[in-house]
């Protein structure tokens, strides 16, 4: 075989277009390649050192167990008041340098399609509790904590007694399904978290008591209780967010590679591929390789908290991503470039999907067909 053919073989192997025999050749060669070479000698200490460097770059979350601390339990409960549903959808559509249309439609306030799936609390990945059908009151305890259901869509963590549990840590995962209303969780430090539809919050009650750290995916709004002695941190996609006491919104969808954090109040530090400090009104967007900070429209970002969704100069694919979560639908693009259309407008939680699609369709250049739970975009 000639050298260029070898390079070509590797490329075809990676593209998955080589023959089975070629695949076997590459894999067998690779397995033995350099195995007996003297160049491969590297000390154990050096490998451990490299491992630590990567660990820092990934900002891994190590479980903390064992230490017991006493502290005050604050029990004040504040109810969240949400704005009532609006019955108007308003869209402006921008086709880049083509034409501009506006459509305005008034609709009755009819609830979106509700999912049969439920809000759940999963403990240690094994015990799953249906939060919707559970009665109010204590629904789980362990590790010296109680989980209390306060009513539909509201949960509270509370310390039970003075001592923490015996140093074991349970993993709690709260998940909202597609189509879910926002779910409010009050953590044991009085921090409040609102989870959007199809989102997940993960914490260990004991670890949380010690170092106020949670992970999440989907969309969540945080009102962090100020405690200078104990910073609060959130892991979301490619970001590690450190705060003292602030209000901020995080979007980290599994369908997208990016994570976006928008700060409303206070200050926070984002650790990702690099570090950045956010000021109010700023948004940090990151993926595996980049982190950028820019000014953001905070009304737009937090509109979901008022059961609205506002978008300006947003790609249709991002608009549909929200609709998928709100209405529990799947979207299929028959004409791929439609996903790139830029739109602006707002949707209220109560709007019927059919009507939302009708209005989006009125803006031209795109057609929707609803087949059961699937929306076909043409």
């Amino acid at each position: 075989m000639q050298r260029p053919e070898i390079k070509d073989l590797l490329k075809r192997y990676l593209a998955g277009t080589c023959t089975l025999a070629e695949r076997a050749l590459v894999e067998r060669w690779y397995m033995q390649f350099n195995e007996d070479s003297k160049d491969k000698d590297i000390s154990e200490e050096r490998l451990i050192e490299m491992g630590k460097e990567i660990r820092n770059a990934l900002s891994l979350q190590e479980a903390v167990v064992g230490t017991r601390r006493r502290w005050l339990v604050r029990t004040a409960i504040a109810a969240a008041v949400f704005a009532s549903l609006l019955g108007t959808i308003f869209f402006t559509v921008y086709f880049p340098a083509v034409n501009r249309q506006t459509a305005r439609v008034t609709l009755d306030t009819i609830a979106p399609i509700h999912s049969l799936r439920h809000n759940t609390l999963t403990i240690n990945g094994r015990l799953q509790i249906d939060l919707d059908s559970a009665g109010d009151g204590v629904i789980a305890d362990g590790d010296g904590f109680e989980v209390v259901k306060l009513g539909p869509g509201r949960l509270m963590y509370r310390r039970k007694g003075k001592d923490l549990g015996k140093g074991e840590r349970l993993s709690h995962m709260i998940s909202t399904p597609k189509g879910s209303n926002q779910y409010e969780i009050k953590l044991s430090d009085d921090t409040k978290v609102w989870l959007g539809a199809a989102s997940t919050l993960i914490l260990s009650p004991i670890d949380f008591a010690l170092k106020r750290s949670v992970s999440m995916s989907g969309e969540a709004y945080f009102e962090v209780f100020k405690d200078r002695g104990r910073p609060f941190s959130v892991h979301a996609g490619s970001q590690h967010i450190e705060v003292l006491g602030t209000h901020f919104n995080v979007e980290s969808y599994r369908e997208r590679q990016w994570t976006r954090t928008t700060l409303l109040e206070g200050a926070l530090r984002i650790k990702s591929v690099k570090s950045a400090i956010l000021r109010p009104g700023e948004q940090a967007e990151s993926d595996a390789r980049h982190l950028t900070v820019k000014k953001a429209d905070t009304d737009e970002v937090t509109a979901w908290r008022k059961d609205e969704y506002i978008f300006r100069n947003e790609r249709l694919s991002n608009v549909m991503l929200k609709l998928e979560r709100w209405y529990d639908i799947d979207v299929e693009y028959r004409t791929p470039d439609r996903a790139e259309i830029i739109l602006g407008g707002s949707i209220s939680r109560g709007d019927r999907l059919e009507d939302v699609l009708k209005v989006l369709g009125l803006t031209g250049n795109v057609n929707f067909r609803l087949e059961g739970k699937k929306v076909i975009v043409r």
Partner: protein
Amino acid sequence: MTRYNRYSDEELLKMLKASDHYAYTEIYNRYHYMLLQHAYTKLGDEEQAKDVVQELFVNLWLRRENEMNAANLAGYLYKATRNKILDIFAHQKVRENHVQASLNDFASNYSYADTDHLVLEKELSAYIERQVQALPRKMREIYELSRKGHYSHREIAEMLNTSEANVSKQMTNAIRILRKKTDTFIIIYFIYNSL
């Protein structure tokens, strides 16, 4: 000590898919050393080896829900590392490239007829096993603890802060209380093999 080191690879994968960051950390603890050593062996360059492993773990988290259909975590991580390294090889300059020379030599002496998918998988498993056996003692212990598998009754009892005999009774009680409280209570209750 965190108890995550006692979860099997399979359990960690499930937890990872559910975005459990501690499971992610445990996977890192369990595999980073082997993968770094492997990447260094093949690449002979510390910076490149570090980049490969770091990128692998960043992607593991980012793609935890979409692409992680692998039942075999070790196999998945090795294959992902291999692809990344082969990609580096494929883009090296042809001149002064002993990687391509080595593959060329190997190809000319190659006489294997067996190209079966399962045979290749077995060869990879055997390769990984050899890597595990060659690990420094402390690293190997981390790995082997996890192979012993599931928690014992006593450990679950400790985890739930109660006595062993109480575990199943408490679970049953919990379900009964919850049933009383609701009309249409749905609980999916399963504890793997252990109870």
